[in-house]
């Protein structure tokens, strides 16, 4: 198993005027890398309308966009830090607005094989210290390295 995060799947201080614009862009980027089907971005938009993916932890507001496995060719997690926050609805209660500063775009292919990765992601987003590092770092290499370190420490790859 290779590293979970790749520096070419980290985007920093990206500005989008809407979720739709963000999803179209990320869909195209991941499609060009051969990681998703052509309509991944559109599938993210449709899913977001019905089941939003915004989350609020104690300290951070984020989004974890994802959609059906059929739109995913290869498992991946992209990290996007927005130049200006994007307005989301909360996954648990659509009435609650979330000003997402980050998005972890999940390309889930085989859910049960990614249990530990998903659980570690949940641990990460509520880890204030770690999230503040991701807020400040300035290079994509630095961020993918930090994320891989955080995940590798918590996931026993020999299992």
């Amino acid at each position, binding site marked *: 198993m290779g590293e979970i995060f790749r520096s070419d799947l980290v985007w920093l201080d990206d500005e989008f005027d809407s979720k739709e614009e963000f999803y179209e862009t990320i869909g195209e980027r991941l499609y060009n890398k051969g990681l998703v089907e052509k309509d991944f971005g559109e599938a993210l938009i449709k899913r977001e309308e019905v089941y939003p993916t915004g989350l609020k932890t104690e300290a951070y507001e984020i989004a974890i966009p994802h959609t059906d*496995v059929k739109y995913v060719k290869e498992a991946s997690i992209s990290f996007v830090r927005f130049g200006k926050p994007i307005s989301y609805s909360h996954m*648990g209660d659509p009435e609650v607005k979330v000003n997402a500063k980050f998005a972890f775009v999940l390309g889930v292919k085989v859910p049960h094989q990614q249990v530990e990765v998903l659980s570690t992601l949940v641990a990460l987003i509520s880890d204030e210290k770690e999230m503040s590092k991701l807020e400040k770092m300035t290079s994509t290499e630095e961020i993918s390295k930090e994320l891989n370190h955080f995940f590798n420490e918590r996931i026993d790859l020999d299992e």
Partner: protein
Amino acid sequence: MKTYRILVACGSGIATSTVIATRVKEVCESNGYKVNVQQVKVTEVEGIANDFDLIVASTRVPETVKTPYVFAINYLTGINKEGVDAEVLAELKKLEES
């Protein structure tokens, strides 16, 4: 000993429900309950809810669903996860006593 059937639901049935299902299974088993956990999309809940003893979901389920239900978004946000654990166990205790 009875095996409780637990339905775990989220929007896509793949990501957040995987995290919730893992936690629910751990909590139940470490408290001595035998459980069978199945993951679905929340749109599928209404049709199959009657076959389950308990529903745990990251979103609201339709009001027509009469199966006991625990709202588990806190497993994802990390805010008071233990409160959700306690609710799940309280529901199982009720089922046990009924």
